[in-house]
């Protein structure tokens, strides 16, 4: 008998959009803030990684070794573990351990090394002569990074952003477990804890459609930037 009561907890379908939509916007707010920070910081680290490697503009074995180690450590921890492990740091930065602002900190920290590695890989795909082309064309390191490395690898970088964006949407759902808000929180709170199947189904469909659209746009954009 008690099972029936629980199973009848489904939110009526008509009310689903009014619950999903605010949560969906929260998800995008989180992911948006995180992506800006990740692209900026992860991008700089990725560029430095590539250029301190043997193929780069300022090859430096020590610098590469240190950055490489840090990026590996950052990528070693599963997101859930990282999130829990850095709670004191999150509290120190944001003053809280729950909610959107608290989710942004671990998401950014997890996203940066991931994106840095993607950027390094994108730059590694460039023909090996590209740095030499920049140098014999009289470019400064900054000019070469901007006009040769980044512009030439733009299609790969767009793919990297797409991949990272999808990972961050996924992380935002995991961050729902610490009450981060957003669609993941909704799924945990209603779908999991209250057995509200309607919410569960609606969040799953929303996430699938979102990822499909993000990937589609990312692929289209990346292809349109190629001139091969």
């Amino acid at each position, binding site marked *: 008998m008690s099972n029936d009561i629980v199973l009848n907890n489904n939110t009526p379908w008509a009310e689903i959009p009014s619950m999903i939509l605010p949560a969906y916007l929260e998800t995008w707010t989180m992911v948006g803030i995180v992506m800006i920070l990740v692209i900026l910081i992860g991008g700089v680290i990725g560029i430095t990684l590539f250029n301190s490697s043997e193929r780069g503009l300022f090859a430096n074995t020590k610098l590469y070794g240190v950055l490489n180690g840090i990026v590996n450590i950052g990528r070693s921890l599963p997101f859930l573990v990282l999130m829990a492990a850095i709670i004191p740091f999150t509290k120190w930065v944001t003053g809280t351990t729950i909610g959107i602002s608290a989710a942004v900190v671990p998401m950014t920290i997890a996203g940066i090394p991931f994106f840095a590695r993607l950027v390094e890989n994108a730059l590694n795909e460039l023909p090996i002569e590209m740095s030499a*082309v920049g140098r*014999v064309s*009289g470019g400064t390191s900054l000019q070469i990074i901007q006009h040769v490395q980044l512009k030439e690898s733009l299609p790969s970088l767009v793919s990297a952003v797409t991949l990272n964006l999808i990972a961050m949407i996924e992380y935002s759902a995991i961050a729902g477990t610490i009450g981060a808000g957003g669609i993941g929180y909704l799924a945990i709170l209603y779908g999991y804890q209250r057995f509200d199947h309607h919410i569960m189904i609606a969040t799953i469909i929303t996430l699938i459609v979102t990822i499909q659209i993000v990937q589609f746009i990312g692929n289209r954009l990346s292809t349109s930037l190629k001139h091969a």
Partner: protein
Amino acid sequence: MYQIKNLNKSYPLKGGGEAHVLKNINLNIEKAKITAIVGPSGSGKSTLSKCLSLLEQPSSGSLILEGVELNHLSAEELRLQRQKIGLVFQSSALLKRRTAAENVALPLEFLGVVEHQIQARVAYLLENVKLSDRANHYPAQLSGGQQQRVGIARALALQPQIVIADEATSGLDPDSTQSILKLLTELRDELGLSVILITHEMDVVRQIADEVAVLEQGKIVEQGDVLDLVLNPNSKIGEKILPMQPIHQPQNGDVALRVTYSTAKQTPLNWIGLLSINLGHAIKIQASTIEIIQGHTVGKVVISLPEQLYTSKQKTIKQQLQAWNIQFQILNSLQISPQHHAA
């Protein structure tokens, strides 16, 4: 104009010690000349090319470009000096996301040239390489030869004094190769540029090089004027630049002479006919290679005549050949190995 003195380059090896890739390289690149640097793969050619284009610092020795010592410059000074040297890459190495015109514009953009001047200069450069009609094409829309011409235009953008072409024709079809070689000779003849040609293709050396240096295991083993080396029977590279075709065994009782001549030394082109008339005997041609080098006809020919005739007219033959500045050696009829006789 570009002197390379006692250049050495070593790389540290992972297991300790070092690889001595270039050993005491001495070269003098002259103005308005095409200097070919040839050698088998692994001889240090590409390292030398990197040192000459200032992409790699030599371990020791000096590079002097028009009186300016290029070693021990700061990174910024090096960047400025590099503008005097244009580099053409083997793969053309164009930026795929830039059009032909935008690729040529890259060095000018780096230098901070204003937009309308960039456009004028790019138009001029593309016209020079005969690609004005392809200005807005992306590299993927150009043939290999066209891509390489864009690469040359880019190398010329900053008005360098030297252009280094690193295997610039490897992998191109024969027609494209010819158009690139023609372009390189135009750079020499019309713009007065020095061209350094890093190559393994002897055809290329024979067709356009003025000077050649042979690199083997990091050392220069032969160098000099291409024509001089071809005419020198002791030069290994001369033999490679103008190889002799396989020689048929001369008839029994015949003497074979291996002859090297060039119109550069006023040898008449009809010397075989003249010699035949002179001897009253039709001379046989066993083998011959005749090419144009540096605008002169250069030939390597093996002729044969009856031993009796040779012995009786030896003095006349020698005098006649020497008067035409023809070098000759008697070939051993069994071995065809040259026995040095006269020069």
